[in-house]
Structures are given as C-alpha cells and as structure tokens.
C-alpha cells in the first residue's frame, strides 16, 4: 500500500503536462530584477551601488540577520538601478536591477559541471557554504536552509526526509530535476548525512512520478541508509507535517516543527542547490521553473536565472494565449496571482501557470449548506466553515481557540466547497488580524 497521511486531502486534476519535457536553459536575460527579500525572515542588505560592475555569483545583498540569506548576482553586468518594484507578492519591494553584460564570458562559467562525488569539506565548512551561498528552501517556503540545519544540541534528529512529492498540480520542476540530476541529489543527501550525522534518509515521491521513483531506487540499491518511498497521490502530501506523518507516522505537534519529532525535511531542489554550493562553490542564482497552462503553446521546464522577468519565460513558450485571464506564480493551489509579466522569478518560484478565461473566474459564493466537505478535507483537522464564520463576525479570539493559526493555507477547503465559499480568504484574513493583535500586545 502506498503511504499517505490519514486525515483529509483532495485529489485535484494533476495536469502535469510538462513532465516529459527536459529542462532547457533559458537564454540569458537582458536585465535581471533581484528583490532583496526572497526568503522568509529579515530582508538582505544591499551592498552594491548604482553603476557598479558586478560579476556572476558576487554577493550583492548580504544577509540581514540570522534568519536571512545572502543574495548573489545571477549575471555579470552593471547595476543600473536600486528601486522599489512590484514583485510576486503584489507589493513594491526593494530590487537590484542589473543589466547583463553579454560579452562577459563568466556568464557561462558555472553551468554544466560534471558529477563530483567526493566530499572534501568538513562539517562546519559545509554549513558555512550553505549559509554563504544563499541557500533557501526551494519548495516554496524559502526558509533559509542554514537555520533549518543548525540543530541545537538538545535535539535528537534521526531522520532526514527528502521532499520530492511535488503535489501541486501542473508543476514538474522537481520531477524533472529528480530525473536529470538524480546522482547529484544523492551526493547532496550524502553531504547532509555527513554534516548532520544522520544515517536514516527517506526520499518521498508521489506515485505519479514512477520513473523518478525507479531511478532513485536503482541508484540506491546498494545503499541501505537511503530509502525511496512511493506516496499516494493526494494533495497536500508535500506539506512538511503531512509528509512526516505519512512516512514515519510521527505527528508534528501543534505550532511545532518537524525538528520536534526528530526529523528534518528538505526539498529535492534545495538538496541540489546544496550539492552545487558545497561541491562547486556555486551560489543560488538559478533554479528550475515550470512554465505551463492548458492553452500555452509550448509548455516547458527551464533553468532560469533568479531575477529574470516572467515575460522572458512567457516569450520562450510562445507568448500568452489569447484568452489569458490569470498568471500565477507557483501552482494552482497555493500560488500567487501576479498582475503582469514584469514580475521577476525569485528563489521561491517553482512555476508560472497561465490560466484562461473559463477557469480564471471564481463562482459567486452561496449559503453554506453545512455539508461538512471542508471539514472532511482539511488535513489539519480544522473546521473551515466555522473559522470563516468567526472571522466574518470578528470573533478572533474564538477563532484562535479553534486553532485558526494552525491552518497551513493549503486551500483544500475552498477547493472543495460546493457553495464556492471563499473559506481560505477569510481564514487568511483572520490569521493576519490575530498576528497583528499579538504583535500589538507585545
């Protein structure tokens, strides 16, 4: 039997149209727009000036604190502007704009490196590389990786889980990476095993990526420390808490982290980035992005430099379809709708999804018919209809007591509600108000 989490979950149409498409290199962008807050935590501090020449991989904004990350120049070129521009969040964020210097040969330096299996660095050096080279979680959460890997002495960690689930419909970036860079990912895992002294590893992959599962199984046949687990296709299987529960039957406590049950979870993309940072001193300046949509002419997976405007990617796949009504940064369940294609790709962008007319508009919300569907599908055991109701009535304290803060914003409730109630919209709103009330109190 395939493993999965016991409570809730949905199965939206998978629509993985790009799963057989090899990752192509996107041509160098003319200009990159690099936001200084691409990760969760404190924004980085800009350390370059206007008109300054920068080389590829040079630090252009340094980590602003412990929970922060360095940002490196994705290209060789000249800083043309330091300006506030709209990013995928919809807000204006400080960006470093760099015009690419096409003559600079170093632009092509770091790509296509041969497999390097021997680990030469010490444990502390490895962690230092991960910190210095700006590695953050590439699964979407963009949590600085060095924080996750810095384990306090009193914590016992016995499992490292590699998240190759990719449960969001449409997205295939992780899938392709697992097929094309499997050996590198294994080395990446070995690096972490060595640095963290963990010898139990599980790679969790949803069963719609059988070739990736087989591939890893083949590569690890003689390795009794790394296990490959096929998971049932169920959203949100890739959510950390659900994944830990599925694979180890351990339940991360309310408001806790996988760390509290002895587990560290890393996305496959992050592992690959760690491999490159440790073995090749390569900072995180590019990532795999799926560009897709039912009407997109030539949906593809790309290696994209951080800061590349979405426009460049759309041009590569044949332009926006006629009836485009929505452009999403990420997948259809958790991605953010963006206003236009000027928005840059950041470390957290796993896909760009173009949605047409017929699917873009939300249906009008009707009365709750108390069908309980939202309750059944909530993987966190919440009652979304109640949380929406309480938020609507501004009963935030009650909502708090009903565990509104533990909502992982997976969207399963809104997805399933037959009355099209905007459950997650209200829950998000309620959460933000409560967060604000709490900070005001302190």
């Amino acid at each position, binding site marked *: 039997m395939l493993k999965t989490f016991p409570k809730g979950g949905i199965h939206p149409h998978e629509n993985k149209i790009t799963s057989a498409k090899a990752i192509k290199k996107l041509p160098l962008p003319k200009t990159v727009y690099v936001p200084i807050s691409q990760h969760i935590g404190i924004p980085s501090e800009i350390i370059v000036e206007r008109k300054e020449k920068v080389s590829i991989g040079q630090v252009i904004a340094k980590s602003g604190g412990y929970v922060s990350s360095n940002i490196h120049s994705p290209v060789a070129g000249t800083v043309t502007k330091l300006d506030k521009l709209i990013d995928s969040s919809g807000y204006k964020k400080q960006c470093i704009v760099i015009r690419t210097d096409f003559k600079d040969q170093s632009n092509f330096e770091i790509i296509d490196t041969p497999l390097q299996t021997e680990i030469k660095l010490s444990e502390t050096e490895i962690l230092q590389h991960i910190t210095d080279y700006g590695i953050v979680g590439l699964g979407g959460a963009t949590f600085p990786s060095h924080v996750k890997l810095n384990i306090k002495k009193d914590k016992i960690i016995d499992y490292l889980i590699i998240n190759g689930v990719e449960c969001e419909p449409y997205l295939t970036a992780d899938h392709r990476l697992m097929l094309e860079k499997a050996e590198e990912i294994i080395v990446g895992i070995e690096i972490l095993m060595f640095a963290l002294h963990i010898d139990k590893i599980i790679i969790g992959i949803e069963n719609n990526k059988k070739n990736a599962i087989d591939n890893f199984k083949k590569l690890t046949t003689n390795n009794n420390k790394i296990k490959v687990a096929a998971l049932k296709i169920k959203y949100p299987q890739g959510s950390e808490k659900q994944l830990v529960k599925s694979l180890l039957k351990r339940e991360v406590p309310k408001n806790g982290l996988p760390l509290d049950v002895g587990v560290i979870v890393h996305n496959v993309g992050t592992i690959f980035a760690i491999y490159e940072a440790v073995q090749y001193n390569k900072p995180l300046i590019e990532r795999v992005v799926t560009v897709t949509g039912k009407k997109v002419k030539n949906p593809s997976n790309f290696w994209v430099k951080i800061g590349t405007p979405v426009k460049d990617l759309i041009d590569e796949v044949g332009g926006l379809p006629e009836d485009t009504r929505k452009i*999403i940064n990420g997948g*259809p*369940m958790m991605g953010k709708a963006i206003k236009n294609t000027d928005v840059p790709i950041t470390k957290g962008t796993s896909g760009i999804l173009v949605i047409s007319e017929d699917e873009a508009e939300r249906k009008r919300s009707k009365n709750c018919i108390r069908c309980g569907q939202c309750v059944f599908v909530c993987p966190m055991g919440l009652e979304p209809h109640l949380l929406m109701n309480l938020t609507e009535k501004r009963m935030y304290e009650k909502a708090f007591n009903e565990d509104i803060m533990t909502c992982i914003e997976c969207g399963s409730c809104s997805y399933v509600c037959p009355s099209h109630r905007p459950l997650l919209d209200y829950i998000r709103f309620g959460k933000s108000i409560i967060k604000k009330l709490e900070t005001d109190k302190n």
Partner: protein
Amino acid sequence: MNNQPIIISASPHVHSSRTSKKLMYDVVIALIPAFLVSLYVFGISALIVTSIAVISCLVFEFLIQKYLLKTEITISDGSALITGILLAFNLPSNLPIWMIIVGSLVAIAVAKSSFGGLGFNIFNPALVGRVFLLISFPVQMTMWPTAVENNTAIADAVTGATPLEIIKEGLMYGETMTELTSKIPSNIDLFLGITGGSLGEMSAIALILGGLFLIIRKVITWHIPTIMLITIAIITGIFWLVNPEKNANPLIHILSGGVLLGAFFMATDLVTSPMTKKGMVIFAIGIGVITVVIRKFGAYPEGVSFAILIMNAFVPLINTYFKPRRFGSKIKSKIV
C-alpha cells in the same frame, strides 16, 4: 493579449467543480427508483401527490423570497425540489390536495425560510411538514389507500394499514407474532415494495439503490445510514431474542415504515446532520434508539420522523462537542 483585465485573486485558483446545485440534483436522481416503484404501486395518484408537493414547495419558496424576504430567488438550487419530493414520499397517496399544500407551506415557510433559508434551518423541512400534518390530521395521514381506491392490479396486495400498524395494534390486543406474521406482507414483498404505507417508503431495494448512488457519488457518507440501521437492528434484535412472540424481528423493523427512506434520505440531509464523522455516528445512534423506543413504547407505530427531528435539534450541540481531532493536538508518536 485580449482587453479583459488580468484577475488577481488569492489561492486556490482551481475548484473541484462540484456545486451545491449538482449535489442537490444527485439527490433528486437518487430518489427516482423509489418514485418509479410508488408509481407502479399507487398509479397516477403517486404522480399527483408528488407534483402537488413539488410545485407548492417551489411556489412558496418563490413567493417568500420575492415578496416577504425580498432576497435573491434561489428556487433553481434544487433544495425546494427535494423538500417537495421528500414530503410527498412521506404522505399517503390519497391525501387531500389541500393538505399537501398546507404541508408544503409549513415545510418551506416555517421550517426553512423562518430560519434564514437554505443552510440555516435546524430541522429537516420535509419532516417538519409531515409531522405537522400527522399531528393536525391524524386520521387522513394514517389512512392508506386500499384496493378499492386504487385500480392497479398490484394494489390488491396493498392493505389498509401498514405492517407496523398491524403489528402494533395486534400486539396491543394480545396477538402473537406468529399470528401476525400471516397478516403482514412477507419480507420479500417488503423488500420489493409491495406493501401499505407512505408513497416513498415502499420498496427497500429502490431506496437502497438510491442510497448507494448517493454514497458512490460522495453526496453522503456511509456513516449515518449504516450506523442508524445497525443500531435499529441490534436493539430490536435484543427485544426479539428475549421474546419473539411479542416483538417483530429486526428485518421487519428495517424493511417496513420509514427506516430506509429516513436512513438514506432524511437523516443524511446535509444541512441538518452533523459535520464530522464522529458527530454523525452519535447522531445516527440517537435516531436508531429513539425510533425503536417510539415504535415499541410510544403512541405512534412509526417513529423515524420524530427520531430524526429530535436528533436534528441536537446537531448544533453535537457539532460543538464532537470536533475533528486537530492535527498535532496530541503527540502520540515518540522519537525512537
């Protein structure tokens, strides 16, 4: 690109495409087999009763929404249609038309609209309509069509009283089950639907078919019907084992009267049933227990409607006390 503006909205950006309307029409489809059986047994009068109930429910809903509440007209959402059908299914096929209309008015106006419309009502509207009629017009509501009033060939088998009435009365006058068994239709007849009673409670097989359809289509879950039936079977089974001459066997209890109609279509009403699986189990056990208690000790031979309505009243409480288990609320797993 076209000149339509780009839409910005929060995630999720896709929807399951299941709408409340579709759910409602699935219920209507599930009721078709039972309706066909009632047509076969009662002939044209089944059609008349059902159409009157459906039309009056729709008309009342429309009038109330348009002139009283002055809100959006939602008669196409399927809910009033279902109320009409279910009300009809709970009536004798020869009930005077004006009574059907009164029942529909009570169902829509009192049980539904006065609570705030679809989703806000506590009690199953069709059952409220039915119980109102039963209390107001007990004679007409328990006068079942006999062979004379009904011209179909099959109607010969239809007696003037329901099996449950025969049993209840017989036992009261000191007859034994052995004597009574010859007076009620065989289990096979009960199963196929050749018996006396309300329009829609005729055929067990038709109701089970409809119920299975709803479960397969995931409109309802198995919890309420299954647990309710098991509860009734267990309790009546105990009585029967203790004294088989004074108590009908569980099969008769389940196959006759409104148990199956209630289990699959009335107790499972989305709006008036609990929203968690735990709650559903409690709710279903409650209905089962109350049904048997009324049948055995109450004044009425039939208790399903009352049982469901009583448990409807407890649903808000059940929802408050039987919450889903929050993820991470109890740490069972330990680090090994």
